[in-house]
């Protein structure tokens, strides 16, 4: 199973505020989850070099922030026709998704409350603050 658990930050470089762990699934496993759960899940779509937050049946273009519960899934989906994206946690560079070609899907959840500034490395105008409660 293509499931990658990323334990954030070694004790040596631990920042003053503990940063939550992120659970990331990419590739075919993420696609399967997305196909089964997307209607009832939060989706951060990437379209026209912008983030679009999809939740509760409505789209919010260029959202500044969003909230997740601990353990709640966020699907990150490239809906472009041709642009590649590369989302990472710019709070501390502690995790990065594989480069997402059009159609690419990843799903992420967090183990503890905290704030994460997600950004596309290639197109850094694409950014959103994720508050985990």
């Amino acid at each position, binding site marked *: 199973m293509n499931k990658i658990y990323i334990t954030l930050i070694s004790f040596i470089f631990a920042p003053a505020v503990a940063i939550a762990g992120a659970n990331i699934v990419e590739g075919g496993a993420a696609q399967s989850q997305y196909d089964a759960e997307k209607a009832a899940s939060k989706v951060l779509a990437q379209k026209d*070099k912008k983030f679009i937050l999809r939740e509760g049946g409505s789209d919010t273009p260029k959202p500044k922030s969003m909230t997740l519960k601990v353990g709640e899934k966020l699907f990150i989906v490239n809906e472009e026709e*041709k*642009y*590649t994206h*590369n989302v*990472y946690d*710019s709070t501390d*560079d502690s995790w*990065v998704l594989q*480069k997402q*070609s059009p159609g690419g899907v990843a799903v992420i959840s967090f183990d503890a409350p905290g704030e994460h500034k997600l950004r596309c*490395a*290639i*197109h*850094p*105008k694409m950014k959103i603050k994720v508050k985990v409660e």
Partner: protein
Amino acid sequence: MIVIRRTCHNPSFSWGNWQPKGTGDKHQILGRKDPTILNLAWDEFYFWDGRAESLEEQALGPIEAAGEMNLPLDKALARVKSIKEYQPMFKKAFPSSKEPVTLENIAKAIATYERGIISDDAPFDNWLKGNEKAMSTSAKRGFVLFNKKANCAACHSGWNFSDSSFHDIGIDDNDIGRGKLVKVESMQHAFKTVGLRNIDRHRTYMHDGSLETLMDVINHYDNGFVKRPSLSSDIQPLNLTEQEKKDLVEFLKALTSDDKPVTLPNMPM
């Protein structure tokens, strides 16, 4: 109000520098080409590696950088304060400040001046407005290539022909660019996508100034790039014909505007 370093950001060279690399304190040659400051008012990332996210943040960096102007900011502030002609100018610009000559206000003044450096209409714009004679047939073919076969518009998009993205475009040097700031593989050797307005006045090209002509640039993108893991997925061999390359260069030249000459002020003493 404050004169920008015109040796690095020369209006004669589209507010950049024709030399391949910048020249810093004691005439040392810097690692990168001086970037243009044209049309930056709408941008969000400054310096080749995007390490500043506002013009105010950017403005003071080169002043104190040891390799560049090498002037500690406290000394820079003292120097500006010692020039009496600046006092009424700062008072007028910052009327609510009791002591208007501050580093913060110096940064604001420089940034505000830079936001006014904007290119005028180019032949391309006049063509868009309906003047069919504004661009040559070759340049019009180049515009089609720019958007399709050559895929330039993947990154050089919008009115200033930049989407402010960062890419490794395969320049063969050891400068890892934004990779120093963002620990992501795709950011190794990545630099900011420059706007293309007045690009033929840059005279040297890329972050290291290693290419001397626009044709060199086209040849680089055609198949002259270094292939490595961080190379942008937008960079692929293009297999352009010689005529297509010429058409692309003609289009790029059609992005140069006939801007008004810049008048140099008398320096406050």
